[in-house]
């Protein structure tokens, strides 16, 4: 283990001590000196960037015009373009095709039979992953049918089906542009960073402003949220194509354009499919969240259930999301994994037996649906509800385990959450700014320090200092707990094959769940408040902690472990002296990811009544206050970016020391 240098020890110890003293005594100092500005950022010094942004936005929407073309017309045109296929799909899946408007509407064709949809996905799953996958997918859809979630699920699915191709297509195009032109890459990189770190609620506000409440806003927000990884993966994939394959293309006489479209892009197919899977999962996550701005669907069911505290409906709809998420994830992964295979010979019918069968069923289902209404819409009498059961479970828990749960909650609040909160809130903001410079500067050099200072100053000058401190405290506590749980689990999984199998399954499932789902059980059991938020954040953010720790342990060169064994290490020594130090960079990367996920979840937990930056964004959303939403969103993004840069710098420094 690396020994601490005395200078380092003095620096960190001194910093901690001064912070502690200042935090505890700030009120007294403020009172004694009469410097009120010390504890509270003076109103007169605030920047009011939010007002400027709001004004600019208003101008953009109401007055901005390029010649005769007003900006508003442009957004309307865009809306129409994206909404048209969305509504066709909706008509096909749920609403049925009609001619005319409102009362005069004449139904032309009813919506497609549920049987066709189930069969279609089943056949696709069978083609991609065999019978087991087909069974899983069909069972998932049957669940949605049986629990009366079909229409909501189809609304969600329609949004996903429109947003995914758009997200993937735009992502690939931008990725190609970034690959071809260096300036696009340099310009795009920070933008993508922002897109991925600005909390989703923050850009819901301006989007709402531009496109209005409804499906279009939801789709735009979804695409913005889900596209960045596709861009990155496309660029990465194109760069990663083996040089030989590119040369083979050139020697075959490809023009540069042919080399891109016929050689590089197809050769990067494997990685691109991973990107598609990510886009699907992020899209689903966002479509659920976007139910707040009119996307409807399963997310809306959960939202209403949460608002009414209807446990049963909430749990059922939550499971519906989980099941849809797992089914879509497995299906897209199977399609991604399935490399090209030998095609059957013969005519179209012989080569596409599944498509043929589906087509036949589709055509037959319409006339049959007239005779058998049950085929058309799944009859309500066949549906189940476990709502009362879940209600019962929660009631039972609340009745019988209330004391225990309450005890845990009270303990956590009094001994961990509240003291940390007081400590952070007590820090006078000038010293906070000093810390925002000193810590990154110590780890990553003065440039990083300057960046930290600039970002912290922006937060302070926006009057968001206390909210930022609450965010920091909730995030910090949650991350520490997530790491304390996750790293040992990961280390265990890294050394034990069976533990790994089980944990991988759990983690994979946790990771496919849309963030929204985490709130349901937490609120049911712990009511609203910081403790609930913390639990939800820990659950969501523990995944990378486990995954990266396990990866770090597993990827250690087995020779080094053997060298340790031969040197006479006990298993404990082997772990502490060989494996953990070697896995440290990977664990730190896991920490980085954990912080990112914690921050993004923290914003969602604003729904369960935290008082942090997320709440600010959420309030801005409900009041459609663009400036406030953007500023608070930027503040969250700054926290995320700073923690990312600091950890990256720390990892690089550690690597540098190891090599020195």
């Amino acid at each position: 283990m690396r020994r601490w240098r005395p200078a380092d020890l003095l620096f960190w110890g001194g910093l901690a001590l001064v912070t502690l003293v200042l935090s505890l005594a700030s009120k007294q100092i403020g009172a004694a000196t009469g410097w009120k500005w010390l504890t509270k950022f003076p109103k007169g010094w605030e920047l009011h960037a939010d007002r400027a942004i709001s004004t600019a936005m208003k101008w953009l929407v109401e007055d901005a015009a390029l010649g005769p073309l007003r900006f508003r017309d442009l957004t309307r045109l865009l809306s129409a373009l994206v909404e048209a296929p969305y509504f066709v799909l909706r008509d096909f899946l749920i609403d049925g095709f009609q001619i005319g408007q409102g009362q005069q509407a004449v139904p032309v064709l009813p919506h497609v039979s549920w049987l066709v949809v189930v069969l279609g996905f089943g056949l696709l799953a069978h083609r991609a992953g065999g019978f087991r996958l087909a069974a899983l997918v069909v069972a998932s859809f049957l669940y949605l049918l049986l629990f009366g979630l079909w229409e909501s699920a189809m609304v969600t699915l329609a949004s996903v089906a429109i947003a995914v191709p758009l997200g993937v297509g735009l992502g690939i195009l931008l990725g190609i542009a970034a690959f071809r032109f260096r300036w696009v890459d340099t310009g795009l990189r920070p933008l993508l960073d922002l897109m991925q770190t600005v909390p989703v609620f923050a850009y819901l506000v301006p989007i709402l402003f531009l496109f209005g409440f409804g499906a279009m806003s939801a789709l735009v927000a979804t695409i913005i949220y889900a596209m960045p990884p596709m861009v990155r993966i496309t660029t990465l994939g194109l760069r990663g194509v083996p040089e030989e394959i590119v040369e083979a293309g050139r020697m075959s006489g490809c023009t540069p354009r042919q080399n891109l479209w016929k050689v590089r892009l197809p050769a990067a197919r494997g990685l691109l499919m991973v990107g598609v899977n990510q886009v699907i999962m992020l899209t689903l996550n966002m479509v659920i969240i976007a139910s707040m701005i009119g996307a409807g669907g399963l997310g809306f069911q959960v939202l209403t259930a949460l608002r009414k505290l209807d446990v049963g409906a909430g749990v059922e709809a939550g499971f519906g999301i989980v099941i849809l998420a797992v089914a879509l994830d497995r299906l897209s992964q199977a399609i991604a994994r399935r490399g090209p295979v030998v095609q059957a010979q013969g005519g179209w019918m012989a080569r596409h037996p599944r498509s043929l069968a589906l087509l036949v069923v589709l055509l037959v289902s319409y006339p049959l649906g007239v005779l058998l209404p049950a085929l058309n819409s799944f009859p309500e009498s066949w549906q189940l509800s476990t709502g009362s059961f879940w209600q019962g479970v929660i009631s039972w828990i609340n009745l019988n385990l209330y004391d225990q749960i309450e005890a845990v909650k009270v303990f956590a609040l009094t001994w961990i959450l509240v003291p940390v909160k007081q400590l952070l809130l007590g820090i006078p903001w000038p010293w906070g700014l000093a810390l925002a410079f000193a810590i990154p500067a110590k780890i990553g050099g003065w440039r990083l320090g300057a960046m930290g200072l600039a970002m912290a100053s922006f937060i302070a000058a926006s009057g968001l200092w206390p909210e930022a401190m609450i965010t920091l405290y909730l995030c910090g506590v949650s991350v520490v707990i997530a790491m304390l749980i996750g790293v040992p689990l990961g280390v265990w999984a890294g050394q034990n094959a069976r533990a790994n199998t089980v944990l991988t399954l759990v983690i994979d499932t946790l990771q496919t769940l849309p963030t929204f789902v985490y709130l349901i059980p937490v609120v049911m059991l712990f009511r609203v408040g910081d403790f609930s938020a913390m639990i939800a954040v820990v659950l969501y953010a523990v995944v990378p902690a486990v995954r990266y720790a396990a990866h770090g342990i597993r990827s250690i060169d087995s020779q080094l472990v053997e060298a340790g064994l031969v040197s006479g290490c006990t298993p404990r020594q082997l772990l502490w002296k060989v494996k953990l130090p070697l896995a440290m960079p990977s664990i730190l990367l896991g920490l980085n990811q954990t912080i990112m996920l914690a921050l993004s979840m923290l914003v969602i937990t604003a729904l369960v009544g935290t008082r942090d930056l997320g709440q600010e964004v959420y309030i801005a959303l409900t009041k459609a206050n663009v400036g406030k939403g953007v500023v608070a969103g930027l503040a969250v993004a700054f926290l995320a970016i700073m923690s990312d840069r600091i950890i990256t710098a720390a990892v690089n420094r550690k690597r540098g020391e190891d090599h020195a």
Partner: protein
Amino acid sequence: MEQPIILECRNVWKLYGASADSFLQSHGMQATPEALRRANIVSAVRSADVTIRKGEIFVIMGLSGSGKSTLVRCLARLIEPTAGEIRFEGRDLLGMSGPELIALRRHKMGMVFQHFALLPHLTALENAAFPLEVQGIDRKTRLDRAMQVMELVGLQGRENRYPHELSGGQQQRVGIARSLIVEPDLWFLDEPFSALDPLIRREMQDELLRLQARLHKTIVFITHDFDEAIRLADRIAVMRDGAIVQTATPEELVLNPADDYVAEFTQHIPRAKVVRLGTAAKPLGPGPFAGDLTASLRVAEAADRIEAAGLPFRVLAGDGAPMGEIDGRTVIDILIGREVAR
């Protein structure tokens, strides 16, 4: 008698580093390895001269890092040389525009790669047809043509497999088929068999010789394996640290290595497999002779007959004129590697 020159390169340099261009201009051709290293420039190819004639197998041999792969990429203009002149069939290769170069590759050049470089999303047949596809030739024509080259390389019956479903040797056969489909004049093979198992490698070398006997291409073959070079080459260029140390026939290399570095490679090569009768022959004696042998035969190929005959054989040059004699004693000297005063 001598075949026309297909590819000729003079004084080709490829340097990597910030100041590579200006360095070469200021130092001219006196850029020594030491000077380059001081200027923080990596020299991949230094002042290479190569002349390749129609129909020969020209092997560029060198260990990894010797610059052979860089040189062949300069010859195919996959990378731009820092300096030098390359002429392909008399035309200035380095002065060609992008479209000219593409046209050239579409009709005159083919290349086989070390790791096969097949496109993973195309079947074997579609891979072989790929150069025709990018030329815009219709699907039926190009697949028919690809079928022919697949048969040529012995892959009929596997046309519809994808690369990942084929063994390494089979994948490289697809690579060869792809490079041959445009009937190139100049055929680059960049360590084509290095990624294969030794047994498959020998099989593929035989395959190459079989194809060459039929197609008479001009071949530039890159390898790090001296045995392979000896086996295939009409002429070999040995590279070291970016420079060509010696260019010669396998026989000359073995008998007169230019320096210790080349000798290091040649000393383990059985002389009898390289040396031809014309070189081993002594001045023509009075006879009697057991018969006539052509000068281009290798000693190992004729050893049994010479040794069994008891009498010397007359050695005839290409035009049929006697140029010397060879007896069992000489053959044995060469076989056991005894130094012979000649």
